[in-house]
């Protein structure tokens, strides 16, 4: 009895969580344009999705920024993690605070403060400012995923390499990097996903001329949601799902 009660409670909560998503996905296959009436199965909205120039532009912006931001923040963050790891206690604590600060800051404040920076320096907001912003909020996540790998490493491995005649640069590429590679890849994937998914920061750091998918959905939503949006949502959800399943698998592995 207790068991049935427990399971139905879980089922109820999960239904609550999945109901809107399921509805959204179903609607994306609706032949008609009304959200209220089911007019039969069709891939019509998926077709229109790919013919819509605004959406395709936004898709391009989103994906290219996600790739670039992931690339740069991974380099920046991995180097930083190695550096911070090698620091003495006090500067290390300072750097970790500096790293945690943007993560605890509300997204809206991050976005607005960056917007202020760009306006203050008379920098026109657009694609490149959005990229800078994305690199900024991604990098701490990369650091936090590389850091544990560095801590797991035998603290003397780097010294052992120097001892055997390796220069610091050689030791970095042949000893440290191979060791922390899983953390770097996880960090890069995480950065990519965060960037793909971001709305708030992008919203404040770009111009209306350069939109990513999130900001586009937002501006469309104010005018009423078109079924193409449903199709887009369904696609994005599946894309993110696949990506994050990969990230999740990677982070869980080393504990085994």
């Amino acid at each position, binding site marked *: 009895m207790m068991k049935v009660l427990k399971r139905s409670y879980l089922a109820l909560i999960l239904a609550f969580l999945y109901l809107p998503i399921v509805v959204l996905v179903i609607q994306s296959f609706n032949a008609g344009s009304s*959200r209220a009436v089911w007019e039969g199965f069709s891939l019509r909205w998926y077709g229109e999705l790919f013919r819509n120039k605004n959406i395709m532009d936004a898709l391009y912006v989103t994906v290219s920024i996600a790739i670039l931001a992931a690339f740069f923040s991974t380099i920046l963050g991995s180097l930083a993690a190695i550096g911070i790891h090698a620091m003495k206690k006090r500067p290390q604590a300072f*750097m970790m605070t500096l790293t945690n600060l943007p993560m*605890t800051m509300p997204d809206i404040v991050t976005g607005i403060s960056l917007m202020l*920076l760009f306006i203050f320096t008379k*920098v026109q907001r657009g694609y*490149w400012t959005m990229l800078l912003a994305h690199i900024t909020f991604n990098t701490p996540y990369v650091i936090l995923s590389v850091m544990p790998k560095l801590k797991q490493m035998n603290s003397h491995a780097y010294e052992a390499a120097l001892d055997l005649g390796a220069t610091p640069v050689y030791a970095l590429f042949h000893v440290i990097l191979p060791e922390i590679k899983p953390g770097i890849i996880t960090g890069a994937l995480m950065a990519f996903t965060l960037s793909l998914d971001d709305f708030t920061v992008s919203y404040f750091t770009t111009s209306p001329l350069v939109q990513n998918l999130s900001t586009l959905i937002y501006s469309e939503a104010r005018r009423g949601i078109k079924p193409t949006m449903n199709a887009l949502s369904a696609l994005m*959800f599946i894309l993110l799902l696949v990506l*994050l399943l990969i990230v999740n698998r990677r982070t869980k592995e080393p504990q085994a």
Partner: protein
Amino acid sequence: MLDLKMPVWGTWLMALGFIAFIALLVLYIRRHKGMSRSLFASPYTLWMIIFTVLPIILIAYYAFTDANGKFTFDNFVTFWDSNHTMNKQLIEMGFDPAEMGGGRGTVNLDTLVYSLWMAFLCTLICLLLGYPAAAIMADRQFKLGATLVVLFIIPMWMNFILRTIAWMTLLEDNGLINKLLIWLGFERVQLMYNSNAVQLGMVYNFLPFMVFPIYNALAKQDVKLFEASMDLGANRWLTFWKVTFPLSLPGVVSGITMVFMPAVTTFFIPRMLGGGNTEMFGDLIERTFLTANNWNLGSALSLIMMVLILLSLGLLRKVDPDGEGGSML
């Protein structure tokens, strides 16, 4: 039209950054006689100074100045002076404190109180809904638990705007729920455009943040503790209250942090589900900046929000110093 050209500023900013970076590097190497690994963190340090520290300083600067750049506390006065011009400006823009049941009549204070109240309610509801769910899944006899907890995380990976829009589909006048009600023979109900709809959207968005850390804290508890407690004569309930629950507190604290923080700063959900009648502090900040173009007041509001978050984080850190609840991934 997509405009992907690299603007002129980009070139000089990059050049400037590069020069500054090289200068720092040379200084450092001179001082430390050689290559040290801590050097690898210097590009990041520079980046963080430009893109995190500097912007925060800018916010602080704007918060304490007026439109002419003169030092002032005026932006904070708006919190209690209902006759302030900025206050009237905001009301003209459509912020009506009365709709949120405001007392003092200043938009800022009322919105803040309303946001805190909504966030508190949201946290409470998430805790009440989430703890039992986490406890059921963490039960060792429940083999599916570890799989199910992943199901709780997946919806969170969906863009929150999309999730919120999905709720609109369900709640609107011609939405599925109303259709179902009419089909069952009931009256149409106005589900959207009120506080309850906003609260629903918030709970929906943040519930997984509560479940996951609590589940983590519960699942890692040693079965032996449970057995020891039973061995010492406590029954199931007593064991729960005296052993299991206190040990899960770090997870609870973590969950509260992870729900309350984003809930206070919620932005967009109230606008979509509340229809502009019940905007929260995040929306207020956005509107002050982008609609009213008042950066000084907007900065002051952002600053207050940031301080509030940092204060409550500091407070929670005291309860859970190691952040034991675990992270989301």
